[in-house]
């Protein structure tokens, strides 16, 4: 993990300006994927609306910068706050609905948000999108130019590592474990005295904050927002990245984002068949790697443990216990089960 972090900070800048620009984009879209991973993989609430949170946060930056101020702190707070407000809606859904109804509620809400910019074209720019005025383009990112130099790239790396580390810490904490337990069996968790709805609301708001952070970074990095950010495609993409990487892991959604976006961009440059390749890649994941790439690697690791455990003398830890302890492996898709 430490090597990965070092590589993230050091290697792209060594390869000139092009690579950091691309990785920058991957990291920004990796944040909503991470949010999906937390809410769907660990809390088992399949939320298709994370893209709406991302989009609203991005639009907030552009609108406030366009009409009110370029102050980067004000923009950051406004953006994150707007994302959390949207997440409150999803938190309500987590309380009143479960399973397929929850999924559909998040889907419909995202579709509703996607139509909002066209209703207030003076504010949002409508179909043309909204650019941050040139005089504030660098000011809004704390003076770090997203195009020139590596300052903005390193800020992004720092923020991504921060969210990953915090999420990992929270998941391993008592509260995080309770949240995972609620995701796997809410009835049993409630019987043990845990506030199921309380934890679901908390994880929804936390993951919303991460997605909103992604939206804020997108807006200050690109100095332009458009309808696509609020569209269903953006939301579904976040879900796909997460599921492909491994929805119940921290690093999986980020790797899924990098892999799928790279595949899409690379195949888009080579031919016009990128949609076909992405479709087949999804099918490969569905049928061959149902736990995602990281989940698949984890299964391989467990297989290795199985071989090693065959030689374990009697009286030591049984194989099943080893498997459960090491992986939390339950043979379900990315942790999203139909329990």
């Amino acid at each position, binding site marked *: 993990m430490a090597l990965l972090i070092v590589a993230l900070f050091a290697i792209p800048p060594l390869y000139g300006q092009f690579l950091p620009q691309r990785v920058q984009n991957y990291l920004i879209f990796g944040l909503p994927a991470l949010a999906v991973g937390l809410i*769907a993989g660990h809390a088992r609430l*399949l939320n298709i609306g994370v893209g709406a949170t991302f989009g609203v946060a991005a639009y907030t930056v552009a609108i406030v910068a366009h009409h009110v101020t370029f102050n980067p702190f004000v923009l950051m707070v406004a953006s994150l706050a707007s994302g959390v407000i949207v997440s409150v809606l999803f938190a309500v*859904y987590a309380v*009143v*609905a*479960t*399973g*397929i*109804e*929850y*999924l*559909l*509620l998040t*889907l*419909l*809400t995202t*579709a*509703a948000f996607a*139509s*909002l910019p*066209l*209703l207030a074209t003076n504010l949002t720019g409508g179909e043309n999108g909204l650019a941050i005025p040139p005089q504030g383009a660098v000011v809004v990112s704390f003076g770090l130019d997203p195009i020139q130099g590596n300052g903005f790239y390193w800020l992004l790396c720092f923020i991504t590592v921060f969210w990953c580390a915090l999420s990992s810490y929270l998941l391993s904490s008592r509260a995080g474990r309770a949240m995972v337990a609620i995701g796997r069996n809410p009835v049993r968790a409630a019987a043990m005295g845990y506030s199921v709805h309380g934890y679901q609301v908390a994880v929804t708001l936390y993951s919303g904050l991460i997605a909103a952070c992604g939206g804020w970074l997108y807006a200050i990095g690109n100095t332009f927002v458009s309808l696509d950010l609020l569209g*269903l495609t953006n939301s*579904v993409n976040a879900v*796909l990245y997460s*599921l492909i990487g491994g*929805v119940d892991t921290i690093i999986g959604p980020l790797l899924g984002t990098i892999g799928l976006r790279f595949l899409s961009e690379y195949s888009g440059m080579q031919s016009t*068949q990128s*949609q*076909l390749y*992405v*479709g*087949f890649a*999804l*099918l490969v*994941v*569905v*049928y061959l790697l*149902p736990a995602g790439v990281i989940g698949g690697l984890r299964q391989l690791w467990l297989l290795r443990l199985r071989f090693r455990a065959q030689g374990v003398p009697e009286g030591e830890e049984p194989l099943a216990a080893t498997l459960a302890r090491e992986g939390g492996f339950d043979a*379900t*898709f*990315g942790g*999203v*089960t*139909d329990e």
Partner: protein
Amino acid sequence: MGESVAVAALNGLVVGASLALVAAGLSLLFGVLGILNFAQGDFFMLGAYAVWLALANGLGFWLGVAAAAVVVGIAGGLGLMAMLWPLRDRAHALVLLATLALSLILQQLASNVFGADAKPVAAPIDARIPIGSHDYPVYDLVVVAAAAIILAGGFVFLKYVRYGIWLRAVAQNQRMASVLGVPVFRVYALTFVISLGLAAVAGSLLAPLVSVYPTVGLDINLNAFIVVIAGGLGNFRGAAAIALALGVVEALGAIVIPGQAVQLVVFGFVIVLLIVRSQRQRVLVRL
């Protein structure tokens, strides 16, 4: 004003009728198998291309509609079943992902085979009837009538025909139906065929009104989801009724407020409806 309202209502009825066909199929698939098919709109698209192909080969419009229903229904239905069968006991997310992948693949293949441009399809009936100062195309009314006949046929099938009754039995309790001798596998296959056949028929009937292009099914897919949710997941009759209502409300609403606002109101309504229902929703194919 009165004429505009009448014409808008008729337009809404046309959209609603075709939407009802797609949504009824979607609802059936969800009711029996618990599958939310994100690629339903793409079978709508394939139905539209079937008509375009039939016309291009001089086979006639109505033969194209029949071919769309049979070929897309059977080949598509059984193909989709073969694709999703290994996932039947797996998480919803896997099925959603698989149908999403299929949607991407079908759109790209359609673009490769037929091209990305919109292809106009001539309506089989050119006649128009006067509504005040407007001349309204007769074909649009034929679409409504055809959809009504197909949906009524579906209702009768589910209510009185043996396989229709079995289909409802499987939706209600698959294990019990199996114990009582219902051929569950055949019922599943039939559900896939009917569901995709309905989407293909809708696409073929609507082709002259919307032109044909690879992503023509995307918009109708979202609206079909709205209809299925509002009508009650797995509720065949509810889906049909809500589809007609949605088409008319959107068309009439667009006269007084912007189309986006109408859509927002519809979204809001369906969200509230779903919240109210979510605690007591039972997934059955109801009539």
